[in-house]
Each structure stands twice: as structure tokens, then as C-alpha cells.
């Protein structure tokens, strides 16, 4: 519990105050974070998985959008590092009274907050928060823009299978247009030298999808025969309600883009990931999610370690 944490590469000049998105982080920054996360991952396997690293820090988790695992993961990471944590979720306290986000964050900040972890449906909210308060801001998902800690934990998990991701083939399958997980993963993976293909219905690709920098495919067999890792994304069933539907039915989505046990047999090499929560029977068959090819639960465990590393690096410390 009192064991020191040593920076793996103290020569790397990590100067970021915030984590707004991986677009702002260099390859070396990303590798540095992932390297730090290894130490925190080890801590999680100890009998007492706690360190006092953030014991004098106060962190607010500001969640304006439903989240179970990301919020729990951050909270666990914070508590395992001894931080004081307050949670603010939409539906509680002042949001209902119609207080603006700016007023809310400034009020909370007046209570001496060191870091803010923010989730919001509007792209750019973390950037907006940096203009409102001095605290370090960590983006826990801003609309369909970025979800950098998710991408970091995904890359960390991929590294457990392939320590060097250079030249590895990664497929991301699902609703590409409306996914923050895709954007952060594509940015990060390309910086690490991986090959990335996004796959899904054409109606779920953003216009100018090539701008993301990944290759595009509309054929699941094509990408599964190619990839080392296939990451399926949650299809947001709620998007199908109201408005003009982007695909005809869940049934047809599964027929075209669902990963099945037949796929696992036909293409014996790829590993399966999913940021969760899985719609069983939609993105993949239940047996696929539970198969030994799936590393979905490792992603969840690693998420805590990666978030500990980010919290540590952004807490203003260079050494514990």
C-alpha cells in the first residue's frame, strides 16, 4: 500500500493538464499512459488493491448521460487511489431546477475540486468545461465525439494479446456515425501503427467517413477474415425509435453484421472485444460473447487500471 510507483520512462515529457480526447495526445503520450497502467493493473491483483496516490485530491464525476460501467469504473479507480469523490448525475439536484452547466460546474468547483470527470451527450462539453473552471478535465464521453479512456483501456487490452500493435489489423463493427468509441479508438490505434477498418451499414457511416482515417467495409466476412481483433459496438436500439430508421430491423442488422459461432469456426484467429453493454443476439450471439475468444471482461477490469493511470498522471504529480 505504501509501495512507490515509478514512472516507467521519466524521460517522456507528459505535460497534459486534461484528457479531452486522444486527438490531443501523441503516440508517445498514449504509450506512456498504457505503460503506467501496467503498474496499476498489478495493484488491482494485490490482496489490498489500494494506493494512497490521490488521498488529498477531490474529484467530481459529472454524468449528464446514463452510464453504469464507465461511472463505476472511474469511481472505483478514484477510491482505490484514496481520492475524495462526489458524484453528480443528471436527474439529481440542480439540473432539475434548470441550472446551466456553466453555473453547475462553477458552483461545484467553488467547493475546491481538483479534477472533473465528465460525460455528456453534447460533443465539446469537456472543452467547454476547461473554459469554465481551473480543474483538470477528463472526458468520459462527449456525444459521438470522443471517449478517450475507453479507447485507452481497449488498446491496453489489445496489448495483452499483441504487445506491439504495429501492423495489427483491427476491425470495428457497428454504428460508426454515432460512436465516440470509434473515433477515439481509430485515432489512438492509427497513432500506434495499427490498421483499422470500420464496418457497418452504409447508413450508419458518417458522411466523409474516410476523414476518420480508417478503411471502410460493408461486408462482415471480409473484415473477419482479415482482422486480428474484431470490436463490435453496441447498436443503440433507442436510435431506432422515432425519426427515420437507419436500418430496417434488428433482425436484418444481426443477419448482416452480427458475429456468430459460424464466424468463429470459419475464421479461427480473431479475438472479440466489445465496449459494452452487449445486446446479446444483436451485435453477436450470446455464445460468442461468452466464448474463449472473447476478452470483453478483461476490458472491464483493465478499465479501472487505465483510469487510475490517467487520474494519477493528471493529478499534477510526477512521483508518489
Amino acid at each position, binding site marked *: 500500500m505504501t509501495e512507490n510507483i515509478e514512472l516507467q520512462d521519466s524521460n517522456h515529457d507528459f505535460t497534459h493538464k486534461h484528457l479531452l480526447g486522444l486527438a490531443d495526445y501523441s503516440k508517445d503520450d498514449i504509450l506512456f499512459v498504457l505503460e503506467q497502467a501496467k503498474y496499476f493493473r498489478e495493484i488491482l491483483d494485490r490482496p489490498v488493491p489500494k494506493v494512497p496516490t490521490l488521498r488529498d485530491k477531490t474529484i467530481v464525476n459529472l454524468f449528464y448521460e446514463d452510464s453504469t460501467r464507465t461511472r463505476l469504473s472511474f469511481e472505483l479507480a478514484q477510491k482505490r487511489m484514496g481520492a475524495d469523490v462526489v458524484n453528480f448525475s443528471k436527474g439529481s439536484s440542480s439540473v432539475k431546477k434548470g441550472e446551466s452547466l456553466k453555473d453547475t460546474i462553477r458552483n461545484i468547483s467553488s467547493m475546491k475540486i481538483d479534477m472533473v470527470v465528465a460525460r455528456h451527450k453534447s*460533443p465539446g462539453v469537456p472543452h467547454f468545461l476547461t473554459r469554465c473552471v481551473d480543474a483538470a478535465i477528463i472526458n468520459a464521453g462527449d456525444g*459521438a465525439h470522443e471517449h478517450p479512456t475507453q479507447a485507452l483501456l481497449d488498446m491496453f487490452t489489445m496489448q495483452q494479446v499483441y504487445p506491439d500493435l504495429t501492423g495489427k489489423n483491427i476491425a470495428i463493427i457497428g454504428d460508426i456515425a454515432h460512436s465516440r468509441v470509434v473515433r477515439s479508438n481509430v485515432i489512438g490505434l492509427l497513432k500506434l501503427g495499427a490498421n483499422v477498418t470500420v464496418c457497418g451499414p452504409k447508413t450508419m457511416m*458518417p458522411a*466523409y467517413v474516410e476523414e*476518420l482515417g480508417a478503411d471502410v467495409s460493408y461486408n462482415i466476412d471480409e473484415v473477419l477474415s482479415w482482422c486480428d481483433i474484431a470490436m463490435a459496438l453496441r447498436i443503440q436500439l433507442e436510435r431506432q425509435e422515432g425519426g427515420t430508421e437507419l436500418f430496417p430491423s434488428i433482425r436484418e442488422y444481426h443477419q448482416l453484421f452480427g458475429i456468430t459461432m459460424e464466424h468463429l469456426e470459419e475464421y479461427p484467429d480473431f479475438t472479440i472485444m466489445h465496449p459494452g453493454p452487449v445486446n446479446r443476439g444483436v451485435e453477436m450471439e450470446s455464445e460468442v460473447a461468452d466464448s474463449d475468444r472473447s476478452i470483453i471482461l478483461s476490458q472491464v477490469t483493465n478499465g479501472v487500471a487505465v483510469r487510475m493511470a490517467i487520474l494519477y498522471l493528471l493529478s499534477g504529480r510526477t512521483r508518489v
Partner: protein
Amino acid sequence: MSYTPNLLLRNVRPVGGDFDGSQTVDIRITDGTIAEIGTELNPQKENETIHDAGGAYVSGGWMDMHVHLREPGYEHKETIETGCAAAAFGGFTEVACMPNTNPPIHTRDVVEFIKKKSEQLPVEVHPIGCVSKEREGDSIAEMSDMKEGGAVAFSDDGDPVYNSQLMRVALEYSSMLEMPIINHEEDLKLSRPGHMHEGKVSARLGIDGTPGIAEETMIARDILLAQFTGGHIHVAHISTAKAVDLVRQAKADGINITTEVCPHHFDLTDEEIERRDFDTNVKMHPPLRTQEDVNAMIEGLADGTIDAICTDHAPHAIEEKEVEFIYAPNGIIGLETAWSISVKRLLDSDVLDLQTLLTKFVEKPREILNLDIPKIEEGTKANLTLFNVDEEWTFSESAVRSKSKNSPYLGEELKGRAEAIYNNGRFVINEI
């Protein structure tokens, strides 16, 4: 806004009509009318004010045919008085205001309320009446009655006339009155829930986009309806390259169509949203588009496809704009900066010469709205803008005359400024 019926303007350089800006003259205004144009005129009356303009240009007063004055209903954003103060600072002596107020300008009494509220101001306000009753997009409003009250055109701006049958009826009915229909061109099914231009930047930022086709398909429909009915369609705040092509072709085909563009659409691109980290002062509708579109705006201005420059002046209070990007209302104020942006993008870049640029501010908007065009001629009403094209100034908050400050140009170094306006016997000198 002092009442100055008798004014001797010294050392001005008229542009427009027979004047090309090379001549320096004095202009004597008596009882609000241009009485004498000459050199080295002497003060004649005891109550004649003398203003030495120091060689400033003077033209017929400028007109902005697309502003939102917000009154009645949204006086926390802007009032007729503050909006007109912003217009005066920008060099505009006349504005046409859009009807998305509360109540909307959909009956004669609201038209007359606005006329009455503005009658003592140096800036003349021309209300644009609604196309539809309650601006609800279903059935046409009392256009003739509103015209009698002072309305100069009809529009449901803020929203499109989405119902094609309503647009047909509106074009037929308004053509009988010789009035244009101004449409906010947007196919709502294609555009929503867009918060910025759908393009490369929206792909990167994960923001739902409004595609150019949402504007273009609506313009194509309106061109066909204008051709079919013989009505006059005016395309509001044009913003895409293909839209300019459509209007250019329609004009070549002899269709009664005109259009306008805002300075921000020939100056800024969607890259600004990324560059400024989701600043809501670059969120407007139509959205900032691409460099290709900006270039097309400039070409359209150069070849005359785009008739007029307007601002779409859209004030919003600080607390309304300082919010999450997707919750922020669309629009920016534009009256104070329109001239400087035009100087930068059109005059200094040699796209338009000064006289042609001025037609976009003076003659064209009034031709579209069938209003008298001010002239620098003895015996005509003095309706003038004094301006320069080279003064460097900073658009600081103290220069904002609007009640709202939602401008992406705040803090910018600009060049060229309206120094003063004269209209309705009132003389306003702009101080930064």
C-alpha cells in the same frame, strides 16, 4: 441620434451614380434633404451643424434586408432600438426585420407596432410579414393587409416554408401584390438534428450534421414553384456552392429569383468549430460550410448571381449561448461587422470594386424589396452612409451596440468602418 435637420458635411468623397469616389465635395443638407453639392460650401444658417468628414467616402445609405430585431417577445436579446443602434454602427440606414418574434409578425397590427416603435429612429425598419398565420406553416397570412401596414416581403424565416402547397399559394398570392417570398431554404427531414455542416469536420467531431443537400433540394423546389407560379422567390442566406449554381441557372432561365449572402458565409468555414473548441459563436443556421462553398459565395457575388449582402443579425443572450454546443441556439450578431468583413474578403481581395460592392449594400436590397433607392443628388432625401475602407480598428465589446454579444469576430482586428449615417433628419457619428 441627434436630430440634425441642417447639416453641412465637409470633405466627403461620394461613391455611386455619377460619382466614383475620386472627387472631394461638401454636401449641404437642409430639412433632411440634400440641398447642395459643391466645393467649399459656406455655412448659411445659424442652426446648421458642420461636420468635417476628413475625406471619408459617402454613399447612399446601406440596407440590410435580413435582421432579427427580436421585438416583440425577446427583448432580452435585442430591442428595435438596440438593433437599430447596431445597424447605425454598421452603416445601415434601413433594415428589414424577420417575423420570428413573439407574437410573430403575422398580422397588420404587429407590422404597425414595429413601424411605430422605430419611427423616431435614424434607421428605418421595414417589417417582413409572415407567409403563414402564426408562422405555423399551414395557411397564408393576410399579406395584403400587412403590405398596407408597411410590410415589404413575406417569410417564415427561422423556419422554411416546408409545405409545398403553401409555397405555391404564397407565390401566387404575393405575385399579385408584387412582393417577394423570402424562404429559409431547408428540408427539415434532411437537416435535423444537425448542429453544424455535415462534412469532414462533423465526421471528426461526431456532431450531427446538416448536409448541403437540405438547402439545395429546397431551393430546387422553390425554383420550380417560382417558374410555375411566376412569383418572386428570394433565397435567404445562401450558403452552398451547389445552391449558388442552382440560382445562377435559374436566373439564366429567366426565373424571378434573387438571393443574399451573409459575410460569415463568405469568410468562415466549418473548420472554425474545431479550431475554436466548439465555441457556440460559430454555430449558426445555415451552418458555416466548406472552403469550396466560401469560394462559391465569392464567385456568386462577383458574377452577380448573389444580389445582396445581408447579415442575418441574430442576437442571443450570453446565458443562451454559453451552453453545451448542441443546446446553443443558432445565430450571431452581424450588423456591426458586415462592412469590415466585406472589405477584407471582397474589396481588398479584388473580387469587387468599391462601386460594385456598394450595390450589394445600397441598390440591390431595395430593388428586391421595391423600395426607393437613395441617391446623392440635390433635392433628394438625405439617406447617407459615411465610411472608409482602410481604418484599422478592433471589434471590442465596447463597439458592440447590439444588446447581445454573440459574435465570432469579437476581439478581431478589422479594417474599414462606417463612420456615420444620416437618415430621417438624424445624424449618428459612430465612435468605437
